[in-house]
Each structure stands twice: as C-alpha cells, then as structure tokens.
C-alpha cells in the first residue's frame, strides 16, 4: 500500500477523532470555562439537538437547516434552564453538579416517556469517496471542517467582540461588571445558551451518523470532559490544542491496540497532563511567565 494512502488514512482518523472531541467538548468548555459550572446535562443538550434536527429533517427541512434549528432549540432550552435554575447557583458552582445531574435525569427519562425509546434516523448524506484501498464517508470531512470552524468562531467571539470581553468580565467579578453597566443576567443567559447551543450543534451534526435514543448524550460525555480538563480553564486557548493532542493519542492507540486502548489512552492522558500541566494546556500557555 502506498505512502499517500497510509498518510491520508492516518490523517482521516486523526481528523475524525479531532472533530468528535472538539464538537463534544466545546459546549461544555464554554459553560465550564466561562462560568465555572460543570454541566452534567451536557449530554442531554446534545440529545436535544439531535432529536430536533432529526424531527425537522423528517418534516422535510433540508439537513443543514435542520441542524441549525437543532442548535437553536438547544440554545433556547439552555437559556430557559439558566433563567430557572443555574442563575440562582452562581455563588456555589459545585452545587450545579447536583442540579444539572437532576436535569439530566429529567431530560433523559422525560424524552423516553414522551417520545418513546428510540427515533428513526435520517441517514448520512453525501455518500463516500475512495482513496487507495479504502473508502471513506464524505460527511466525516464535513464534521471535521465544522469543528475547525467552531473553534475559530469561538476564539473570535470571545476575544474580539464586545460580547466576549463583557462575558469574561462578568464571569470574573460579576458585581463590578454590573456596577459598570453590564446587564450581567443577560450575559449569563447568553453564555449558557451558547454552550447549550454548541452542544445542540454537536448533536445535530452527529445525528445522521448515530442511533437516536434518549441516553445518546452519554456517549459524548467522556470525550467532552477529557478534552475540557486537558484544555484547562481557558476555552479558547485550550480546547483546540487539547483536542489535537488527544486526537493523536486516541487515533494512534485505537489503530494499534483497539478501541479500549484508545479510550483508556484518553483517560490516562488526562492524568498525565494533570500531573505535568496542572492547569491544563491553556494554563500552560497563560502561565505567569515565571
């Protein structure tokens, strides 16, 4: 088999792992990195995005639009959750673990009761292409492209826009941000909605490739947490390099020793990174240049 084929296949596997890590993690990372909230209902926002996307697609909406609708509906649900629950917990972030755990129970089981145990899928669009001996799904490249786009978009949003600076200020010293004229409640709601919307986007993007069941969110959770930890508190600096590093680990381990090795490799990577860079990659990049 020639080198080009091998190189492409390695690259494809890497890109595939990278996309999954980034898209799984970015919603969680925004909510965790910006607000210090561990959102255990993250998987359920993903599920929400997927369900809405597929329902819309079944109703005849073109898939890209359906995915967008999925993300928006998740964002709206996120905003609602923020207003009703999360807002009251900012001064005790660890309690949000319990609240969001509760939410995740409600969403999962509620979906099961209302919509039944599964939903029919829509099928993966775009078909396949061949390089050398292997054929690949074209849609996977789209996912990869979306991952890059999301990362770039987030970076731009938080560093270059008014909203970004405002959000970061609010999260650091909320009372002072308010005293300087920032509507901190609105900022919180928008930030949480953004995180939920990104989760919904991930759900929508992966919906055509996956089984749709109320518990589907859980398959994203481990990857999401791992990426966030390795990335560290600063979402914009951390998530992309973390996902890249982990994608290499996962793709290599998986191709050599199988999926279990890939999974355990991810978790070991967390522990190693924590040992070497306790504040994650972004902590390392932002370290007090001592």
């Amino acid at each position, binding site marked *: 088999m020639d080198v080009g084929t091998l190189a492409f*296949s390695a690259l*494809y*596997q890497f890109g*595939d*792992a990278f996309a*999954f890590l980034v898209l799984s993690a970015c919603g969680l990372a925004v909510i965790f990195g910006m607000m210090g909230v561990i959102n255990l209902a993250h998987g359920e926002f993903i599920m929400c995005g997927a369900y809405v996307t597929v329902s819309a697609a079944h109703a005849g909406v073109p898939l890209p639009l359906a995915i967008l609708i999925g993300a928006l509906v998740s964002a709206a649900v996120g905003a609602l959750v923020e207003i009703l629950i999360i807002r009251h917990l900012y001064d005790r972030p660890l309690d949000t673990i319990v609240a969001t755990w509760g939410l995740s129970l409600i969403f999962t*089981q509620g979906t*099961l009761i209302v919509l*039944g*145990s*599964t*939903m*029919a*899928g*829509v*099928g*993966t669009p775009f*078909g*396949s292409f*061949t390089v050398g*001996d*292997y*054929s*690949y*799904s074209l*849609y*996977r490249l789209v996912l990869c492209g979306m991952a890059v786009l999301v990362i770039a978009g987030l970076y731009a949003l938080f560093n270059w826009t008014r909203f970004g600076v405002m959000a970061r200020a609010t999260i650091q010293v909320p009372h002072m941000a308010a005293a300087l004229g920032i509507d901190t409640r609105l900022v919180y709601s928008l930030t949480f909605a953004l995180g939920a919307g990104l989760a919904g986007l991930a759900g929508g993007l992966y919906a*055509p*490739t*996956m*089984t*749709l*069941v109320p*518990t*589907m969110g*859980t*398959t994203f959770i*481990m990857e999401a947490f791992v990426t966030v930890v390795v990335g560290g508190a600063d979402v914009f600096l951390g998530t992309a390099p973390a996902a890249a590093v982990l994608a290499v680990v996962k*793709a290599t381990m*998986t*191709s050599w020793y*199988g*999926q*279990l090795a*890939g*999974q355990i490799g991810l978790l070991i990577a967390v522990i190693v990174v924590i040992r070497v860079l306790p504040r994650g990659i972004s902590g390392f990049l932002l370290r007090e240049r001592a």
Partner: protein
Amino acid sequence: ADPIKLGVLEDQSGDFAAATIGKVHAIQLAAEEINKAGGIDGRPLELVIYDTQSDNTRYQEFMRRVLQRDKVDVVFAGFSSASREAYRPIVNQFDGLAFYNNQYEGGVCDANMIVTGAVPEQQFSTLIPWMMEKYGKKVYTLAADYNFGQISAEWVRNIVKEHGGEMVGEDFIPLGVSQFSQNIQNIQKAKPDFVVTLLVGTAQASYYEQAAAANVNLPMASSVNVGQGYEHKRFKPPSLKDMYVTTNYIEEIDTPASKDFFAKFKAKFPDEPYVNQEAENSYLAVYLYKQMVERAKSTKRDDLRKEIAKGDVCMDAPEGKVCLDPKSQHMSHTIYLAKVGADHSITFPKVWEGIKPYWLGEAGCDLTKSDPSAQYTPSNPPPKN
C-alpha cells in the same frame, strides 16, 4: 383461590429500555390471557412489577423485595447478564425460582434459574456455517468488549476454525462507544468475506450507519442485532442491507402462530415499536410456567423441577415447538435466519427447528444431579469428575 404471584424485574428506563419494555408488555399480555381463561389451575396470576432502571443495584434491591416481602412464587428478571449475575446470589440465598428470558452468552448452570432465551451454540452453529457456505471463509468479528461479546466471539472463532475458515480480524468495542471510523478501516484492510457484528447497546448500533456511509458494503451476520434492537426499523435503508441474523423470534415471522401472537400483542399495545425475540421469550415463559405448575399441582421449586426432569416440558410457542432441557434448564428453539434486504424488509432464507442448547449438558452441567450455581464458558468449562 389464592393468586399465584409472579415478580417482574425488567428495565423500563435507562440504557436498555428500548429492548426490554416489550418484555414487560409480553408478560402482561400472557397474564391477561391466562387470567381470562381461568388462571393457572384456577388460581389467578398476579404480577408484581418493578422498574429496574438498567441499574444492577436495583436488581439486588428488588430481588430481595419480591422474594422476601412480596413472597412471589416465581420471578422473571433481567436483560443484561450483569443484572442476572447481580441478582443470582440472592435467588440462591432464598432458594427461589427465577426465569431469565433473554438471549445471552450461555453457561449458567444453576438449579434456581430457568433460561428461555437463545444461547450462542444455537445461534452460531446455524449461522456461521451457512454464511461461510454462501459468502466465503474469511471472517471478521466486531464484538462488544465484555462477557457477551467476548464469549460469542470465541464461539464464532471456534466454529469458523471447525469449518475450515479463517478469522481475518477481531475488534472489541467497549460498551458505550459510538464512533467506528478506525474499525471500519480495519475491516476494509482485512478484506473479509463477511463481518460478524456482535454489537450491544444503542451506542454501538451506530456502527451500521457509519459503515454504510463509508460504503463498506460487506455481508454481515449477527446473533443480537435486529432480533433484539430492531436496527432495521431504526436506521435508514440501506444501512443494514445484507445483514443475516439468527433469532428465535421477530415480528416479521410469517407463520400462523407468529401472526396470531403479533396481532394479539398489537391489539393490546398498539404503540409498541417492535416485538422482538425477548418479548416472545418472556411470553412463552409465562405459559411454560403455567404448564409446569398445572402438571406438578404445586408452585414449589422442587416439584416443578421434578416435572422438568421428565424432559417433556414442551410447548407450542409463537416461534414453534420449544422444549426445556433438564440438564441445563435452558430451552430448545426454532432458529430463523432473517435476512435484511436493501429496503430493510425481512426474508427468511432458512429455518432450523428444534435446535438444542447442547453445550452445557455436554460439557458436564447436569442439574438433575448437582447444582453448582455457577456460570461456565467454553474456556472455563464445568469441572470434570
């Protein structure tokens, strides 16, 4: 007369719910029919149902509860083998009687248990030779990375060897994993004649969609999918095209008994997404229990086992005739080979009748003589004495 109490512990929520809610419904259907027809020996059947939430600890809690407090006569319990192993010590401790109405990796040799589901020897001794005949001798197995997957894969491996075939690859997938790009590539690289997919749980079912999207286009064989998770109904055609499954029941089976059962089921539960093999296993188990009690004129476990020991506890189930094997207390089955077409319609190229759960008995489990209350595997067989 006093009712006969039947405890039901099945997962109505959580990860497994998709495949198991139908089991509860099947039991309810059978109980209703029996009660309408005058009960068991004149005694009505009363169900005590708990939702075990796909959580092993709930099985432990509720198995104690049904045996110790509700004092049921018999329990129907469990989907995953882990949940069965979780409650089995408790059934043993209280010397109760439990039915495990589920297809599984085989090997449970325990006098307190009756198994109505199919086991690997029934599904693979039929499926694999047939597939090798039709498609070729190079086989690739993709299996869930836990007891069921590993033991099933072992069966496949052994049967392939026996029939002069070659394993060109084996991949094990941890439960809960939903991304398969690397495995798809491994398979393409190994160029098998067909792929045996032993994927468990809703996450792993995503393989089919992803393999189809990458245009893998290989015939597939399975003992769990379709018959249990009705993937052909959930995924968009043609992602399961050329999938061959050996199962003792699915709703598409076109015999009068099956059609009759399916019609009754749908009449009572019109929203049921699918009537799978475990639903039928559960349904027939109720009737089997009725037969045993009526013959023994008792609900005591020892009396029932005396009937089983006679070796003629058989019945006409929706799938066809089934019998209970006295040595292992497992069930013989009619095994259907279901083929999924490009439009996800089902055809049955082959049917095997009366396939016995032979392995345990041959390996040395004989519950009529001794009760080890253990689970064995081909690589860890019962001790020879």
